[in-house]
């Protein structure tokens, strides 16, 4: 079986999966990518075993600068065209199956012009018109000039992807259910799988972070997000942290993530400041009690999470972050916002704790209970780890995805060209 994976970055969602398919099952796995990712970076083994082909993206279609909302679709078409040209110029790339990441639409929309094989769309997310994702933060009203219009047209690339795919899959049920109901029967729920050997509980890890020794007895509260932004509740985390730090002087808040805003309109609130700077400026805080790690590699993230006494995950209803699954795999006690995607993996009181996103007092109270009495809450982390091993590990997910790919490939083309 030859699978062509298409994603802006490598390894991202598909690298580890492809490595397993190549190593264990002998599949040929090719990639069309824009860039090598820095979050996470590819392993040498991935670079050695998988075929990587770089796309030639015109400067105007690169994703380096914010795009005005009416132009987003054109930019997407520029990328889809680069994919088309990438395949057109490589006659040896004639796969049995194409799997494209549809985070920004589906990059495969033009490939039926060149390839006759089935196409799978990784259905990451369909933006809601209101009260979810980037429009959930009612406490931070989106800028009036874009809010009424943007959600009505942001899904154009995604809709084109849905119309042109043979089949699709989403990582979680919540993500699948964001798509219009009429398409859901074409979308399966299959999680990507995380490395539960890397992300595992570790005993007797030296208490050290970013080269600094952590004093014995210090409680570590972790927060991880690709970007420190409002959709991932960074500002709410800061408020909760303030309340915790007032009650307990022994807590260190360890934050991993860049200062980039990936979703929504935070920059319209914060002016020249990053959202992180804006949120931190709004509270009195002792800088020594906040350790910002910036972007870190998976190995380092696993070490951080293993030392966490409490992991806070304060997302709005949106794509579930891998960091939550990683934290659960590490056996962390997780306190998360009570939103639908979180409820899919956290059963309150069993595999973690949830509180309303906007109730910083309640979040802080619950956090303090965990920090005051870790032994009582330790079984939550153990149950979380068991759940991840059972349902979200590479060992569980890769066979299911392999089976799915085989089913779609053998069914042949079903889309309407």
């Amino acid at each position: 079986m030859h699978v062509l994976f298409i994603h802006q970055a490598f390894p991202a969602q598909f690298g580890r999966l492809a490595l397993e398919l190549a190593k264990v099952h002998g599949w040929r796995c090719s990639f069309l990518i824009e860039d090598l990712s820095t979050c996470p970076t590819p392993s040498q083994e991935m670079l050695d075993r998988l075929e990587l082909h770089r796309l030639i993206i015109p400067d105007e279609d690169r994703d380096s600068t914010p795009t005005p909302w009416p132009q987003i679709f054109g930019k997407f078409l520029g990328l889809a065209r680069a994919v088309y040209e990438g395949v057109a110029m490589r006659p040896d790339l004639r796969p049995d199956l194409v799997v494209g990441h549809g985070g920004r639409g589906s990059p495969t929309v033009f490939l039926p012009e060149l390839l006759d094989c089935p196409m799978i769309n990784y259905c990451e997310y369909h933006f809601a018109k209101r009260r979810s994702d980037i429009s959930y933060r009612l406490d931070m009203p989106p800028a009036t000039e874009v809010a009424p219009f943007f959600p009505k047209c942001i899904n154009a690339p995604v809709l084109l992807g849905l119309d042109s795919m043979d089949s699709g899959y989403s990582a979680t049920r919540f993500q699948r259910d964001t798509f219009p109901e009429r398409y859901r029967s074409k979308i399966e729920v299959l999680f990507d799988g995380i490395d539960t050997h890397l992300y595992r509980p570790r005993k007797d890890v030296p208490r050290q972070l970013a080269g600094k020794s952590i004093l014995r007895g210090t409680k570590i509260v972790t927060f991880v997000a690709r970007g420190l932004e409002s959709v991932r509740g960074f500002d709410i985390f800061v408020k909760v942290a303030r309340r915790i730090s007032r009650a307990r002087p022994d807590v260190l808040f360890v934050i991993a993530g860049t200062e980039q805003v990936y979703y929504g309109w935070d920059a319209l609130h914060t002016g020249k400041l990053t959202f992180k700077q804006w949120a931190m400026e709004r509270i009195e805080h002792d800088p020594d009690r906040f350790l910002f790690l910036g972007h870190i590699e998976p190995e380092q993230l696993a070490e951080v999470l293993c030392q966490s006494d409490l992991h806070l995950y304060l997302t709005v209803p949106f794509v579930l972050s891998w960091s939550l699954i990683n934290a659960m795999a590490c056996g962390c006690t997780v306190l998360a916002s009570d939103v639908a995607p979180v409820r899919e993996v956290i059963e309150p009181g069993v595999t973690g704790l949830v509180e309303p996103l906007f109730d910083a007092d309640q979040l802080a109270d619950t956090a303090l209970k965990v920090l005051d009495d870790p032994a009582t809450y330790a079984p939550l982390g153990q149950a979380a780890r068991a759940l991840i091993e059972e349902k979200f590990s590479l060992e569980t997910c890769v066979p299911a995805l392999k089976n799915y790919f085989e089913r779609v490939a053998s069914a042949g083309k079903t889309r309407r060209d």
Partner: protein
Amino acid sequence: MAQDPLSLLCVEPFFPGKLGAIADWLVRRRGYRIHFFCHQVDAQEMWPESVGRGLDVITYNVGGVAKEPSVHWSRGLERGLCYAYGAWEVFDHRRLRPIDVVLGRSGGLGSTLFASVSYPGIPRINIFDYYYRPHLYDVTEDRAGDLPPEYFLWRRSANAMDLLDLENEVTPVAPTLWQRNLYPPEYQDDFTVLYEGVDARKFVRASERPREWMGRALPPETKVLTFVASSPDYLRGFERFVELANRLMRARRDVVFALVGGGPVSRMLDIHFHGQDYVKHCLEQNPLHDPSRFWNLGACSPKVVSDLLSFSDLHVYPSRPYPVAKSAVEAMSAGSVVLAWDSEPVREFVEHEKTGLIVPGNDMDAAEALAVSMIDDAGARRRIGLAAAAVVRERFSHDACLPKFAMLCDRLAASSKT
């Protein structure tokens, strides 16, 4: 409760466009009050009679990329969004109240996508004309090999505005079953199939044929064959009409041909001839056997078209598969025998040898034979012409179609209030 009669807001880039006739009927026959928002207004002779008498026309400007005369195909949606935004700016400025229903037309530059920002909760009806299939229908039918690969990329991206509208709480209407079935299966059940109709009052058979028309002699034994298109192009098969005309002119002396329409090709579909004079091209490629019997009338007023069709003996409709031109239905209404090239959309209007003639495949010999059989058989012409006029009155006229449209508006307006 919705008011009775209703107050509608119509949105279409050009007035009167397609919605103008619908709006006119709803005003005249149902007493609706209609605010018609458009970017450009056609010449006054094209306006329906209710303008200023219940039908107000309000123009909006567009900004951004929509100001440019043409843009790269990848910016098509951006251009459409600029139109939708331009319309919204004027809605928001005018704040017309009350509005019971918003009526728009999707695709291309038309969309009511942002109307709900100013009119939340007000039902929206959008008419959907055409969902591009990458390699099916229209000019791809027999010219696919001549079209560059990039053309098909455009076709695969051109439905974005329609998809957005369909996902943004509109009540979709398709004029015909064939048009509805172009849309992805996931949406088809949402559609109401509702043809907007033609004005059968204006397209009727002349009681007596004139002996002279527009300075041209029309001897009684002469048969008039017509072709009507706003800009004759490949899509509507103008070169087929020329070929048929030449064959018939060579074979017999009792036929004249009348062409209505002219100017550069305006549809983007035909990238080979877009912006060019396709009539001139075809006549150079296939010179007329007898130019004196080919009346090239150019663009004409609606009155001239209805006059011509009222005594047309055979209306030639050699279109590639595409939404059936209104002029073909108007010709049927006027009792002319329509000679149409076979396609799925045509078969929804024309029943072979009952309400018209259908040319199988792209068979010019068959077209010629059918045309000759009609020219020589006055009885058949009369029988088919009468049947065509009757079917238009019963199924495809404004009076047959638009009451259903009004019922849809009434139902939506009432349900939105409850």
